[in-house]
């Protein structure tokens, strides 16, 4: 089954795929601890009512850059090797999606375990909020897992889309894709502009999950559409 072989091709570099995310999480955690300790020392252990450690976004922003790099590289550099080894484009896309699902599940599992540990230890015995933060579900493990899993898959899918645009049309591909997506977002903002206030007022978190699902499906379909006729150079 060539799709599974492609999945193995992606996951072969265990250090990059499995260890690097842990390293990035550890670095973000260390910086969070350091800043928290500085704040606590600077305020004599009583930071005041304006200080809310749940607004810490370090963990939310530590992985996206790496995840997008991984998925762009997965297409831009791994696609030619996959083709050289006898994969079809369809199998390559399917194998890549499987690898991305596996990685998203791995990252979600690791981060959710760390959230549970943070909650169980009373925020690391010192009121330090690295995972129990507003942007990642405010301490709800189910919401947290859903945000991390769908967020990771969304980033992977967008990275794959840009990587495949590069494979198909070289530098012009990602450039045109960026401009096109920017225009699309601008048009959507213009169209729903008058309703933005009421929309924000009635905002539900599951809307984001649906939006992420739509983006993932469209980006993956776009990736296949771009690679389906792409020549290997």
């Amino acid at each position, binding site marked *: 089954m060539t799709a599974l072989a492609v999945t193995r091709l992606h996951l072969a570099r265990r250090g990059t795929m499995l260890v690097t995310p842990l390293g990035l999480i550890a670095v973000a955690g260390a910086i969070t601890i350091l800043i928290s300790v500085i704040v606590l020392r600077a305020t004599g252990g009583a930071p005041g009512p304006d200080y809310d450690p749940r607004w810490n976004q370090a963990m939310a922003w530590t992985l996206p850059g790496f995840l997008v790099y991984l998925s762009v590289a997965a297409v831009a550099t791994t696609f030619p*090797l996959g083709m050289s080894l006898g994969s079809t484009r369809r199998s390559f896309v399917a194998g890549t999606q499987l690898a991305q699902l596996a990685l998203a599940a791995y990252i979600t599992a690791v981060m959710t375990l760390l959230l549970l540990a943070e909650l169980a230890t009373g925020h690391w015995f010192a009121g330090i909020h690295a995972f129990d933060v507003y942007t990642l579900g405010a301490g709800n493990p189910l919401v947290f897992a859903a945000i991390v899993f769908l967020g990771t898959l969304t980033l992977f899918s967008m990275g794959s889309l840009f990587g495949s645009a590069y494979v198909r049309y070289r530098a012009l591909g990602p450039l045109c894709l960026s401009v096109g997506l920017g225009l699309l977002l601008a048009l959507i903002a213009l169209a729903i502009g008058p309703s933005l206030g009421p929309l924000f007022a009635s905002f539900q978190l599951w809307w984001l999950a649906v939006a992420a699902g739509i983006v993932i499906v469209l980006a993956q379909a776009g990736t296949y559409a771009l690679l389906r006729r792409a020549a290997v150079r």
Partner: protein
Amino acid sequence: MTIPTTRSGAQGEHHQDGPAGAPGIEVRGVSRRLGRTLALDEVELSFPRDAVSGLLGRNGAGKTTLMSLIAGHDRPDAGEVRVLGHRPFENAAVLPRICLIRDNQRYPDDFRLKHVLRVVPAFHERWDAQLAERIVDALRIPSRTPIAKFSRGQLSSVAILIGLAARAPVTIFDEPYLGLDATARRIFYDLLLADISEHPRTVLVSTHLIDEMEPLLEHVVVLDHGRVLLNTNVEAARGRALTVNGTASAVEDAVRGRRVLRSQSLGGLRSVTVEASADDVALTARRDVEISPVSLQDLVAAYGAAGAEPEPALLEGASR
């Protein structure tokens, strides 16, 4: 040395790959334009099954484009490619049986030898781990350095490793000798010869080192400007041209009316390579000129030079 065309074990493995005796690779009226360049122009040729074929020609002749089409890396604008009886592009029935590692092959960042050895067997069920180990040792492929930091010769070694150990029924080598020292090239030729004798398969090699690889080749195709100049077995290719040496006037008289592939002058002496066979008595019986056979390398060089001319060159009146 010519490898036997029929080898034990070659029969019976390809019953699902078209009729017995069918070519391993068929290219029918294929054209491919890359930007403003017509890389292949109505190419019509075939490569025999379970034989080593050489794809020869000058840089830009269309060799890599042709190999890309055969490996399903690209599609022709017109015409049809068939590999083991199947169209290769997006065809799961045949693509897993083709292996083409390009001369500029890209590998994932941080990819190392151990990743190659771990991953390639998942794609090629005939992968021979012991052979791979021997190749790694013989070609001294570094295990710790990322492939992205390999020298040109080390990259070629990885391509040779994958191409040989995968034992794909259709194996394509794209200038596999680039950057290799003489010893490593010799090792590659010996390994290739030994392995295809044991495990016959259709091998296609693009090369400029024709003299070195000639003993391995059974069939040759010469491309120039995207067109096929020669498509024949090696023996026939060798007997396709002769070099005529002598005084300018005698040589001019001897080769009159024949297609001149290459012509050189030194003072009053002239050396002309023409399309002619050894049984061309009108030419070989002449006593006023010296006739010598042309090596495959010289023949390809001569075709390359002749192909640079706008019209097929006849010596009559020519003074190159």
